[in-house]
């Protein structure tokens, strides 16, 4: 046994080298203290560009809460606030001419982050005239959320839940308020393992990432002076962030042809997670009522996945003799919206919108030039229902 241990220890230098590279390079800033974890002041550089009216090429990770909060704070008034996930990120000011528009959609975000951004607007004294909630049709929609909040939003979500009295009004909401955090914490631990983040010190994947960053960097000094987290992405993978908070996708995505290069659709089990649960339905309704009570208009934009993927999912569910969760969710959202007189734009069914496969940069994200089409049919619909065009603008 001793001989075996001695022989195995001969691999120790390799392990040590891996630990040293991962610890030193640390491209995702896993081993720095949480306060400095995100980007080492990179947000300041982003905001410097945006507030000066220049678009900024996103070179690495950044604290989205800080940036959105500052964009909101810098506006004297906000007419239109777009909230939602990355799919909503291309909604831009030209779609709302003559109005002060802020795109507060969050990459990797969901309903909870949307509520947080609205809360940030409320806390900074801004009352948007319109709140546009983007919801995407290839996610959990109103299914039980198991992934954690986007980093930095946890305290805002806590404050929002308290202000909206979610915790005090109903049992289900209490479950959401209290249990969500536990569930999120649990899922975070499960996702990252018991030894997170230190298990990444001996992770070959992290080593490959570190080496990739090292090879892209000019010199060791440059790494030390600039901080790597903000230079994580090569040029072709850098999205362009505009002063209104909207985004233009990076070159890799713009060159992508998701209508031709098809991947494997998500599995049945993954899609089943999109079945609506009561707690999140309640959360959506509470949010909707809060926006309406505060005197703002609320609109919902349903963003569909790329048509071929939608068709594949629909066929799979038809074969199984079950309704697809996205269909159910759309019906639920429409019924809820109708009961509060909230207009719904778009649809989770791409064939009911003016979008085609060429309008996508991947299976869910829509091109900046095309996303406005989601608003048009609904606009007509709204006009037909008696609302004036000025209401929408």
């Amino acid at each position, binding site marked *: 046994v001793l001989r075996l241990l001695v022989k195995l220890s001969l691999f120790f230098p390799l392990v040590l080298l891996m630990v040293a590279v991962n610890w030193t390079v640390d491209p995702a800033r896993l081993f720095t203290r949480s306060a400095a974890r995100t980007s080492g002041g990179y947000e300041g550089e982003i905001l410097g560009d945006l507030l000066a009216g220049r678009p900024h090429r996103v070179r690495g990770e950044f604290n989205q809460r800080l940036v959105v909060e500052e964009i909101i704070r810098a506006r004297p008034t906000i007419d239109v606030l777009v909230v939602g996930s990355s799919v909503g990120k291309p909604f831009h000011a030209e779609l709302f001419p003559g109005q002060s528009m802020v795109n507060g959609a969050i990459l990797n975000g969901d309903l909870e982050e949307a509520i947080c951004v609205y809360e940030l607007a409320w806390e900074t004294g801004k009352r948007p005239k319109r709140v546009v909630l983007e919801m995407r049709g290839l996610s959990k929609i109103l299914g039980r959320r198991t992934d954690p909040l986007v980093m930095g939003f946890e305290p805002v979500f806590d404050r929002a839940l308290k202000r909206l009295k979610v915790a005090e009004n109903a049992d289900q909401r209490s479950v959401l308020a209290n249990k969500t955090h536990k569930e999120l914490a649990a899922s975070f631990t499960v996702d990252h393992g018991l030894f997170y983040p230190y*298990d990444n010190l001996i992770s070959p994947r992290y080593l490959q990432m570190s080496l990739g960053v090292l090879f892209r960097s000019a010199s060791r000094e440059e790494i030390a002076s600039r901080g790597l987290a903000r230079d994580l992405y090569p040029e072709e993978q850098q999205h362009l962030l505009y002063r209104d908070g909207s985004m233009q996708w990076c070159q890799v995505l713009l060159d992508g042809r998701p209508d031709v*290069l098809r991947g*494997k659709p998500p599995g049945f089990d993954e899609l089943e997670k999109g079945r609506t649960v009561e707690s999140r339905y309640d959360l959506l309704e509470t949010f909707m009522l809060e926006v309406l009570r505060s005197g703002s208009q609320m609109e919902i934009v349903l963003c569909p996945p790329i048509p071929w993927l939608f068709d594949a999912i629909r066929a799979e569910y038809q074969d199984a*003799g079950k309704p697809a969760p996205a269909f159910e969710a759309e019906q639920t959202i429409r019924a809820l919206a109708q009961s509060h007189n909230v207009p719904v734009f778009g649809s989770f069914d791409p064939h009911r919108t003016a979008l085609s496969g060429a309008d996508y940069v991947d299976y869910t994200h829509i091109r900046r030039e095309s996303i406005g089409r989601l608003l048009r049919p609904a606009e007509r619909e709204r006009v037909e229902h008696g609302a004036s065009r000025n209401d929408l603008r």
Partner: protein
Amino acid sequence: VQFDSFHFLIFFSVVAAVFWAIPNRSRWILLLGASYYFYMCWEPPYALLLLASTVIDYSVGLLLGRVSDPRIRRRLIVPSLAANLGFLFYFKYYDFTARTINQCLGSALLAPMPFLLPAGISFYTFQTLSYTLDVYWKEQEPERHFGRFATFVAFFPHLVAGPIMRAGALIPQLRTFPPFDYSRVTDGLKLVGWGLFKKVVIADRLARIVDPVYAYPAGHSGFMLGLATVAFGYQIYCDFSGYSDIAIGISQVLGVNLVQNFRAPYHSRSLREFWTRWHISLSTWFRDYVYIPLGGNRVSAARWCVNILIVFGLSGMWHGANWTFALWGIYHGVLLIVGRFSARFWSALYRALGLTRSSSVALILDVVSTFLIVSVGWVFFRSANLTESVAVLRTIVTDWKSYLIIDSEILRLLRTYWSPADGAIMLVALSILEIGDWLQARFRFRSWLSERPVPIRWAAYYALACMLLFWGQFDGPPFIYFQF
């Protein structure tokens, strides 16, 4: 718990350390507990299914051991067969049957099954079936120790994807474990390293070209489909034989020998030889429990053909509940039959060309033609349905222009799926695989390497470790055979 995960590294290190630290007589308890933990990490309730299968076969085995009347013995074996095949049918084939019936009737008469397919059900069901049949045929004494029998069924290294072990080969090893043997343990670890290389360096990188092409075959040229099909041939070989190597290696560390499952199958000179080198434990299972009871080759030529088609049809369906798998099996069966009856023709043709079977040219012709025949079969195996497999084959054959002119679209697609670095890594890795397989078959390379001086040995070990670290795709798909 995937074999290539951090979780498994911790799990196995703890199990191995405790295994060698505790007394010999308690080791089966550790292995049983570890095996159930391993299985429950995936879907805990399905451990009950494993337990039910174990209890039924253990009880039937004991009863068969006490009864000698053939009529009663025949009645006794029925519950075991019904339970094992019933579980297998319900979880694996019910949806397929319901879908087929619904399609035939044009209605939704039968509802789909609400459960996931339990991991490894095909493997452990066949293993327990073989035990009961061996006891029934009096080729195996019934195991009286329930814990040891449960360990035989659930032994974690081979629980979810084989190799399928016979009771006669595994249970005696679980009674008394051999003392710690340095050479055996290090040989096992080397095999684990080699298996990981096949899985994370080759199979998972090949998946990056196979998956997108087969996800949308209609959008790809004949060249791309041909390339993806050949790539899939290597992907499935490296994925499955990699799993088998890891399973055999970790068992060896724990003092248990599992049977060899692959012997460089793409070096076969005929389809018949291929089936003696590919998934050996399943081939021999079908040979012993289906082919020989059907009469084997001691029957008329016509009956033999039927037997071969039955065996290969069942073998195909064992892989999955889809007509594509059945067709894959039947394709191999038909070609084996053709091969048997055309053997004289090929010998005569070689003689006419002035080639002897032992010549290098004949060897290359045989190996390449066998590889191509097997590759065509992979189209059925990999396609989503029969229509798609026919369309893929048609494009591969008719779109011959794409082989002659590698246009910008093909280059763009190749670059989308693989960077130039990926291509270079793949070439090096596949060369290492082929040379490694050849050296192992010819010179027992791993044993030879163990006897070299320390600097040579450690240079090889370090090279393997560096390839794993720098080239491994540690976020790749799970092992392909987990779904079976």
